[in-house]
């Protein structure tokens, strides 16, 4: 089956649900659940999963508060005002940008100032023109590119990504700059915020490498260290740090190779399956035909279907809904009722679990004898 035949099949599968374009955040978020084939198919068909979740009766709470959005924009403008003054200051610290290398180019809108996908394609072409000028070692080529747009091949479709900034100087590598508004307090950052930032940096770096490869330059010219600029302590003074993204890059390449293999995706998509916004019953059935890999970590992985998958797992009584350590503790016995049957009767489903069953009985006896029970 050729790619566009498969593309049509995905289109049909999406039914009347709205489509959504992937961006750096969604591509990075998918790294949290590399083994969930339901998420991979839905994202390959660019289904709007939050719409789908609403239809299935388990909407995901909105993610971003208006104050956080505003602070993000406020901080980015603070970094980029006065001709990227702070951005250049931090680049001098992190990648020893030489003093005269401050040739600035703003790619935030294309010359034709169109809208939507056309605009992104134009800006991508202009970015490539700026990059080829830069890499031809022309002493006057702009070397601090604002809002460059690079493209990334995700499962057969091209995703256009707007980067905060790119920086380069002759004889050195091309650096991706990421501007985030979470603070660095006493040199420490909240890891819950740092991991997605590192993954997004990896997505930008990979898209830059692919863009360079398409232009005939070696991807080695892109540094795998990203420059992170975020506020220091309690106000908006910018500070910077480097993020080593090699491990995330490796995970991302592995994920994208798998997403790209049409044959594998095709095997996952049952023939003639379609989603329909109108009739939730049919919709739920259709989704259930796609195997998932729910675990509690899905709730923070940015997958809009997490609450839906959780309620199905809880209804079915799977031990994984209680956390992966609980599922791991009972080996192959992964249903709540089976575990309790084994704990109460001491009968193991197979000879592998004999020791386990005996341990459970003994522990339950001790627990009850010591006064354990419901709250």
């Amino acid at each position, binding site marked *: 089956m050729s790619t566009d035949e498969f593309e049509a099949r995905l289109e049909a599968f999406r039914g009347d649900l709205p489509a959504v374009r992937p961006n750096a955040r969604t591509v990075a978020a998918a790294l949290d659940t590399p083994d969930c084939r339901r998420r991979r198919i839905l994202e390959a068909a660019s289904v709007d999963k939050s719409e789908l979740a609403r239809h299935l009766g388990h909407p995901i*709470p*909105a*993610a*971003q*508060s*208006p*104050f*956080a*959005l*505003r*602070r*993000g924009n*406020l901080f980015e403008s603070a970094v980029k005002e006065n001709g990227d003054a702070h951005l250049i200051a931090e680049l001098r610290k992190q990648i020893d940008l030489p003093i005269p290398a401050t040739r600035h180019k703003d790619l935030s809108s294309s010359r034709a100032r169109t809208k939507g996908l056309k605009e992104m394609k134009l800006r991508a072409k202009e970015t490539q023109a700026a990059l080829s000028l830069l890499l031809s070692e022309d002493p006057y080529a702009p070397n601090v590119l604002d809002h460059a747009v690079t493209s990334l091949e995700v499962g057969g479709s091209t995703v256009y990504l707007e980067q905060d900034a790119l920086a380069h100087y002759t004889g050195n590598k091309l650096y991706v700059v990421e501007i985030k*508004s979470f*603070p660095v*307090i*006493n*040199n420490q950052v909240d890891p819950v915020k740092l991991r997605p930032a590192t993954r997004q940096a990896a997505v930008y770096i990979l898209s830059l490498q692919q863009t360079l490869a398409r232009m005939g330059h070696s991807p080695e010219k892109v540094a795998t260290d990203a420059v992170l600029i975020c*506020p220091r*302590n*309690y*106000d*908006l*003074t910018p500070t910077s740090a480097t993020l080593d993204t090699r491990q995330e890059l490796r995970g991302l390449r592995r994920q994208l190779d798998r997403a790209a293999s049409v044959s594998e995706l095709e095997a996952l998509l049952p023939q003639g399956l379609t989603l329909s916004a109108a009739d939730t019953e049919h919709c739920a059935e259709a989704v259930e035909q796609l195997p998932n890999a729910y675990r*509690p*970590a899905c*709730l*923070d992985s940015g997958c809009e279907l997490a609450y839906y998958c959780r309620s199905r797992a*809880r209804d079915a*009584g799977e*031990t994984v*809904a*209680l*956390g992966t*350590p*609980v599922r*791991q*503790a*009972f080996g192959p016995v992964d249903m*709540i*009722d089976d*575990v*309790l049957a084994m*704990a109460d009767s001491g009968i193991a489903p197979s000879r592998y679990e004999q020791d386990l069953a*005996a*341990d*459970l009985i*003994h*522990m*339950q*006896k*001790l*627990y009850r004898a*010591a*006064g*354990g*029970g*419901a*709250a």
Partner: protein
Amino acid sequence: MSGALLTALLRVRAAQEGRAQRAARFRHLHIADEPLVVAAYNLAGDPASPLGIVYGTDRERPCFRVAPEPRNRDIRFRLLNTFFSDFVAYVDALPEGDPPQVIAGNQATLDYLFRIGDSVRFLPVGEGVEPETVLGGRHLVRLVERRQRPGAATAVALTRDLAAHWITGQSALEDAALGPLLAWIDPPEGQTGRGAAESAEHTGLPVGPLPKPEWDEKLARLITKFNEARDGATDPKLVSRLGTPVKRMVRDALMESWDDVWRGLDLLVDLPEAPHAQERWAEDSEDWAAWRKYIHVPEARLARKTSARAAVWQLGDREQAQRRVEAQKIVDDPLKFVAAVADGLALSGLVVSADPDRKIVPPGRKNKVSRPLFTLSLERPSPLPLHTEVFWLDRLACQGRIVEMTMSPPRVTIEIAKGTRRTRGEDPTFPRLGREARFTTLDPGQDWRIKLPDADEVWTHSHMVPETQAVADQDSDFVPQLPDGDDA
């Protein structure tokens, strides 16, 4: 037996019964007579811009402080100054030798209080910053930082401590929210834990410090109206008059958090206190007394970063404290003992042969020494390997080693080497034939004080000296301005 087995079994049991299962019969945490309960809401995105804070020691008389526009320095510091002056008053009113105790709904609130304290504790007094604010900030940071030491009780995060005493029927990740956790431990009549937890998730507001994005949308409209109305003015009366709609909305949200935190605290207080909890609280008092003496010296300096020497001491002290707390819990609480057996750290069995008066001549020694011998029959083969050191739970001074072990029938023979002499005129007691005997491998005994060389003697770590107290490297004039001409 794998360590997580008992917790896993209790989670499965709780999920099936629809109620949390007990993980402890005693509360391993001392609760002060009048702890300070705190709940707060912060402006999303900012590290330390408090929208509103509610605090107090009496459930009926909560103090509310709301800053309708916390990004404005004057309005923000009006809230901070009032809160910290009340906080310092609370600390000073405590009886001698009794450290303050802060009760918060979750660890995120404690971390947030740490950030609030840290954002003020290095500021120079003046320009709208009261001395109590700086001092209160230092006290608050000290209390929350102290909690990083295992067994300390100066700052209580209810989600963490409730989850240590009950096992819910949901995953540990979801235990981080107070509402669902309370729903599992104490579900309302006729509701299962799951049903109550899911409704708490959807209808209830989070306990803080991060509000719900939908709630933020409504609040954003009110704050924009408030800013337009005051047009840059920050005079207190005007701010409080114009800010009433914002205040009412924040107050209602905080009221919900206030009730939830008290409900969680009641659940903890209902449990009888474990014997060793009082001893650990005494250690907290000692530390607090030393801190009070140090901080009131005028030239008291605070390092913003921990030095190599402090880090080494901290690591050693906390590892010792962790070992001692784990050991004490096993001794205090029968349920914790069962968990230790599941973890392969303890042993219980029926004494089938006892020889308390056995005397032998150990190799290389001349005179006879008393080495009592006991054989226990177990229900499961002993997880403890040969030669493991064990302590008898009923009298910890009675210490010995496993000298022999058989698989079927599962039996263990223990030779007692210490605690065999008469002390203070009483004969030593030993496990008796036909009775159950319990042994633990963790020694709750006193550990030695950590003595460290002076910093300048340690040439291997000399290149790691932190910056000393940075004099308010806070950039006061680069505070987040509001766009389009609003004042800072």
